[in-house]
């Protein structure tokens, strides 16, 4: 635990030591706002809720979260510091979890900074704050799932661009796995239970449950499992390919 904490603190500080953190947060907030007000018609709808705000999160995350996760391991490989980290007395699991938690906390900070929109909606009307809280939790869990995928992909390469693109593609697949775009790939040849299983993996369906205000245990467990699975894969990838 102590080692996870030490790695976590170093990683989190690393975000703020470079302009990455500030660029990311500013872009995230600007885009989140622009989507909500312009594409989501926040005012015109005349409803005191944050549906237009949360509705765009999956798409924002699709491009912004891989931008955070791409450097997690690829940069360590590129600079050679992975050799330092892996020869310190820490286990791979500790390093994986510490790094992931730092990236997740960073996402949480960015997400937390969207609080003015919550103030706005409370100023304009009487929204159900329970629904909003559940949606925030769901959004954070989804960000965590995206990050875990990105962390694992990042560990497979020393090239951050490759890590970014692969992560976007895989996350896109997970987002839309309940939709024909993905399901049509399997329909016709794969057994029905398999296609159904793929459909169940969709981030979108689980996120929309949460963002409607239903703090459904299944959705929470689902995201927890996705995160656990990809972090385990991350540790395995590291073990198999420590050097490049």
């Amino acid at each position, binding site marked *: 635990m102590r080692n996870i904490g030490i790695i976590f603190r*170093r990683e989190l*500080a690393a975000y703020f*030591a470079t302009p990455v953190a500030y660029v990311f947060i500013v872009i995230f907030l600007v885009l989140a706002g622009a989507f909500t007000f312009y594409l989501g018609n926040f005012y015109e709808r005349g409803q005191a809720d944050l549906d237009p705000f949360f509705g765009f999160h999956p798409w924002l995350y699709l491009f912004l979260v891989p931008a955070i996760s791409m450097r997690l391991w690829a940069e360590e490989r590129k600079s050679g510091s992975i050799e330092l980290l892996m*020869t310190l*007395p820490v286990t791979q699991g500790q390093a994986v979890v510490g790094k992931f938690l730092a990236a997740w906390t960073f996402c949480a900070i960015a997400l937390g900074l969207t609080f003015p929109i919550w103030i706005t909606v409370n100023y304009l009307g009487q929204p159900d704050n329970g629904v909003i809280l559940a949606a925030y939790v769901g959004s954070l869990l989804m960000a965590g799932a995206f990050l875990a995928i990105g962390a694992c992909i990042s560990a497979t390469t020393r090239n951050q661009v490759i890590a970014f693109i692969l992560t976007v593609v895989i996350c896109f697949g997970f987002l839309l796995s309940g939709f024909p775009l993905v399901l049509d790939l399997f329909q016709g040849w794969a057994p029905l239970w398999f296609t159904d299983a793929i459909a169940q993996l969709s981030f979108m369906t689980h996120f929309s449950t949460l963002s409607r205000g239903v703090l459904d245990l299944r959705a929470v467990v689902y995201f927890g499992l996705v995160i656990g699975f990809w972090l385990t894969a991350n540790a395995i990838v590291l073990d198999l390919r*420590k050097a490049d």
Partner: protein
Amino acid sequence: MIETERLTKRYGNLLAVDNLSFSVSQGQVLGFLGPNGAGKSTTMKMLSGFLTPTEGVARICGFDIEKEPVKAKREIGYLPEGAPTYGEMTPTAFLDFIADIRDLRGAQKRRRLDEVISRLHLEPVLLQSIDTLSKGYKRRVGLAQAIIHDPRVLILDEPTDGLDPNQKHEVRSLISEMAADKIIIISTHILEEVHAVCDRAIIIAHGRILADETPAGLEARSPRHNAVTLRLGDTEAAEAGSALESLPGVVSVETHADGGMTVLPADGAELLPAVGRLALERGWDVQELQVESGQLDEVFRQITSADVGQEART
């Protein structure tokens, strides 16, 4: 104590390290020598637990690096090739991070931090990001990181690479100071360094040990070991040369452009007494006389170039 047994590393078809078995005990400074690509770094990466050996085992202070990696790694201070660090951090933050990971706490942590910072003269750059430092400072930050927990085993991959002569001297004396109660393994291709700090040298090429001796023992393998170089004032060089050549134990005599000559012995025989007597008998005006100990780099070339035709080995 470091022990390796039949340590082997294969990258696909390429055999990088081939059945390396050796052991190093406390108080020894072992120098790894070899041409580029000989397997020095690969061996050190396996010893430090970064790479998994294809076959064989490495034990650090009794801990198998594969089976008990964390325990083994606690005993090691490791400077990887190129001294990688986290460039966006300052040396203060970086060393603080390493000290935490190495489980140093409270007063002991502060004491060790102060000690390595002053020992490696890092004071002027403590608050600058490591990315902006010169190569010499980066290397010294890497060294500070390796010794901060006062480990029993130090593995340093080219510790003086990129340092200026003064800094090289500093680092060598640092290594010599720490040598008594540690096991130190350094890799280098600077042969004078082996002479300066190591009491044992292993020459490897194509992943195999070609020589394992003291630096003096290696020098004794040189054809110039015990050779005598002398310069005569007004004596006829050709005449002196033929007289020297007829001495017992002499293989040949080289004449240099500056009028000096070197008498090469057979099998490292001692020539000085015979040469001295001859000079006295003939009444030569000897202006310079010196016994050569042999050149390490010559021995190195001789040993590593004899090992040819190994590329095809898989």
